[in-house]
């Protein structure tokens, strides 16, 4: 039964299940458009295709001027975060069958809260600025041993989720606070801070907690959970943010 999935992708055209889709894309080219507009493309796709395949298909064979970022094609590089059918997702990790049936519509918009440069491509600089603001690097200035620094399996597990982040921005740009308040560092930066705060080998916990303790840090989070729902790496982001909040509280009091 599982076989059919595996093989639907390239079996001869006669046996392949194809669906008709309307792909509605929010487009904007600053050189020619005053404001964004919707374009709809009618395409055929297999239910097991990635939405990225569908977009590539449109770009390669119908509308070469459609712009979006992509690279790895399997959810590891974090290039192609988009607002697909109402939610932030990676185009390459969303299968057609998850968002549309035969004859259905897939809507694709750029992620929100960052400036749209062209079509689905946004300016990521503010996002990376927030990332850099949390000192996203390991700090331990005491002399290193000849071999590795030891760390228990349990301590290593503390970083299991947070170190898994690919900086795709699905979370930050799904956060209702970030949409209206770009000064909020955002869930992605907090996840990164968590990565170091809870690393038993790191020595800058105090500084990072201080950064998180600002007006623009964890306290802006209103536990809306959009970030957690959007994360393609299944990081329990809200839980991590709450852990950072508590860490600040217990450290400062």
């Amino acid at each position: 039964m599982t076989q059919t999935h595996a093989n639907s992708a390239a079996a001869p055209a006669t046996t392949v299940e194809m669906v008709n889709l309307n792909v509605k894309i929010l487009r904007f080219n600053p050189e020619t458009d005053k404001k964004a507009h919707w374009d709809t493309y009618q395409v055929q796709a297999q239910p097991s295709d990635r939405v990225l395949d569908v977009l590539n298909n449109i770009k390669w064979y119908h509308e070469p001027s459609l712009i979006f970022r992509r690279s790895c094609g399997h959810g590891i590089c974090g290039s192609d975060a988009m607002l697909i059918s109402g939610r932030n997702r990676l185009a390459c990790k969303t299968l057609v069958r998850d968002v549309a049936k035969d004859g259905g519509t897939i809507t694709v918009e750029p992620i929100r809260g960052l400036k749209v440069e062209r079509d689905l491509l946004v300016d990521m600089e503010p996002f990376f600025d927030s990332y850099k603001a949390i000192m996203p690097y390991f700090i331990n200035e005491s002399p290193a041993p000849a071999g590795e620094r030891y760390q228990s399996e349990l301590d290593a597990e503390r970083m299991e989720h947070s170190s898994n982040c690919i900086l795709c921005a699905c979370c930050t740009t799904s956060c209702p606070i970030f949409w209206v308040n770009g000064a909020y560092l955002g869930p992605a930066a907090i996840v990164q801070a968590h990565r170091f705060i809870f690393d038993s080998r790191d020595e800058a916990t105090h500084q990072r907690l201080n950064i998180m303790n600002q007006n623009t840090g964890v306290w802006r989070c209103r536990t809306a959970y959009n970030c957690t729902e959007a994360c393609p790496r299944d990081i329990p982001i809200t839980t991590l943010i709450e852990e950072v909040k508590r860490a600040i509280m217990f450290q400062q009091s």
Partner: protein
Amino acid sequence: MYRGREGQWAFLLHRLSGLAILAYLLLHVFSIGSHIFGERFYMAIHETYDLPVFRVGLIFIVAGVVYHAFNGLRIIVMDFTGAGVAYQRQMFYVVLAITVLATAYSAYRLYPRLMGGY
């Protein structure tokens, strides 16, 4: 509209209800406190409140307060316990249920007033 799930709506309702109660509170303090200007003034204000809009509004305020209070508890539970985060969705529905029940109850109790004024 972003198709967020329970958490997003819980947040939005919490914020709206909080702001609404605050607005109501300001009015409420003003109107109750206005007794220092004498009974005439006080009653004049309260007659305005008698308009149907305000009477129905009262039910909404009750709904808002109950939602805000119980969702506030939900937030506190999430902030201080891991289980709170795990069950936030279920808790949201409980909060909604309590809100609906409390609103229905208060509507029932306020019904005579709604219909007949003082």
